[in-house]
């Protein structure tokens, strides 16, 4: 709050620097006996506005402390650069970001930190189809000719800045997304992209659709992706491989600050003839505006089930 008298307002300068952060502790128990507790994430971010320019930086420590059945206490205090970019806001239709960014696709990848997502676990759908972070250029904004429709276009032609915790190592990534917004809690979208995986030496062409709806107390959203891959290292099997996956996530507000969560997810890789089928049932309790306590049970088909508990804060 601008805490001054009206007569002194001319002394007030617009606040231009913001600092925040988030952290979470996660306990995991698998029905084969494996268990661990870890300080999963601890991050500090800040941004600075100067007219139409914004600078954003974030440092994060991942799995800073872990203790469990296979690990009697390990410390990892080396931070890494999660995001670092400069943004220029030209107008409603054109905004440009450059640097290390969260890949601007879908729903879940935009809210992947523990305090923002409904469940502690993540659907496989968003882990195996595109790099979650990119280092490149992104342009985005509203499309002038279509009401309430946004576009995003991005490309990367270099190695990632600090790629330690990225799910894919790439130096060549391009994609776009179109999103139709009916309201802030009702939208649908389509995206498409292509990237080269340096480690697996394969090129992947992926495409997805997603949707988010809130109907009174019920939040429901989901994403579905399919990928078409070409693997260089399979000389004897130089072919096209398909994989696809979906998840549907629901959260129902039972009473104030308490939500019942449910997710169904499926993944299939046709080249390995493998699939994963998971149902997640959980509870999400938000005692304060920036604090979340979650518990969930994950039922895996033909695998060990899992229990996850977490405590997450944002500041």
């Amino acid at each position, binding site marked *: *709050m*601008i*805490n*001054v*008298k*009206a*007569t002194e*307002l*001319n002394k*007030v300068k*617009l*606040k231009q620097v*913001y600092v*925040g952060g*988030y952290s979470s502790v996660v306990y995991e128990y698998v029905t084969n006996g494996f268990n661990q507790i870890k300080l999963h994430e601890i991050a500090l*971010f800040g*941004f600075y506005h100067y007219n*139409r320019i*914004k600078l*954003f930086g974030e440092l994060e420590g991942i799995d800073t402390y872990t203790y469990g059945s296979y690990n009697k206490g390990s410390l990892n205090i080396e931070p890494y650069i999660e995001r670092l970019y400069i*943004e220029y*806001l030209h*107008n*409603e239709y054109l905004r440009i970001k450059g640097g290390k960014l969260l890949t601007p696709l879908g729903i879940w990848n*935009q*809210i992947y*930190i523990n*305090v*923002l997502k409904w469940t502690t676990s993540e659907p496989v759908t968003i882990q195996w189809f595109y790099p979650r972070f990119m280092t490149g250029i992104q342009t985005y904004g509203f499309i002038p000719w279509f009401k309430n429709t946004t576009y995003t276009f991005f490309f990367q032609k270099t190695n990632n800045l600090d790629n330690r915790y990225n799910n894919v190592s790439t130096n060549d990534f391009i994609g776009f997304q179109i999103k139709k*917004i009916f309201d*802030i*809690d009702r939208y649908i979208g389509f995206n498409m992209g292509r990237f080269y995986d340096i480690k697996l030496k394969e090129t992947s062409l992926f495409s997805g659709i997603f949707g988010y709806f809130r109907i009174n107390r019920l939040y429901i959203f989901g994403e579905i992706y399919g990928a078409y891959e070409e693997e260089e290292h399979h000389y004897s099997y130089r072919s096209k491989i398909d994989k696809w996956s979906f998840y549907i996530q629901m959260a129902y*507000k039972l009473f*104030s*600050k308490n939500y019942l969560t449910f997710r169904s997810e499926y993944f299939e890789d046709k080249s390995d003839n493998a699939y994963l089928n998971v149902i997640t049932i959980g509870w999400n309790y*938000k005692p304060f*505006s*920036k604090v979340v306590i979650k518990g969930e049970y994950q039922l895996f088909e033909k695998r060990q089930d899992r229990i996850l508990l977490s405590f997450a804060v*944002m500041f």
Partner: protein
Amino acid sequence: MYKRVLIITILFISLLFKTEKVHSLEIVVITSKKSRINTLSSTELRKIYLKIKIFHKGERIIPVNLPPNSRVRQIFYEKVIGLDYEQLNMYWNERFFHGIEPPMVFKSPKAVLKFIQTVPGSIGYVPAETLTPQIKKTVKIIYKIKADEKNFDNR
């Protein structure tokens, strides 16, 4: 004796039919006279206050709020934004993570008016009665909200 009974009866009946005083409150959304904004729809206003829309006719828009306990703010959010406290918290946590901060908060309608008069592109909501003829020369009304309020506290 009859007179006393009559007075007590009238008093008793008047208590039974006691009605609360209802004020008709008008809230106005205003901007500087120099601004390119002339009128806004409630949808546009909602997008501006949720920072989905940050430009209007090429002009950067700066929405400002009154404190969360202000009844004027509560009516404005109820009539225009349409999200409850929990939904707004979730929304702004997510936006803050992406480097977008919620609108600035000013202590009083007086402070909002002063800010709007000083900063081009800023918009805010205040009770209509705070607009004196002097202030009306420097600001323009771009949206109006009418509400019936009991025991209204003008903050």
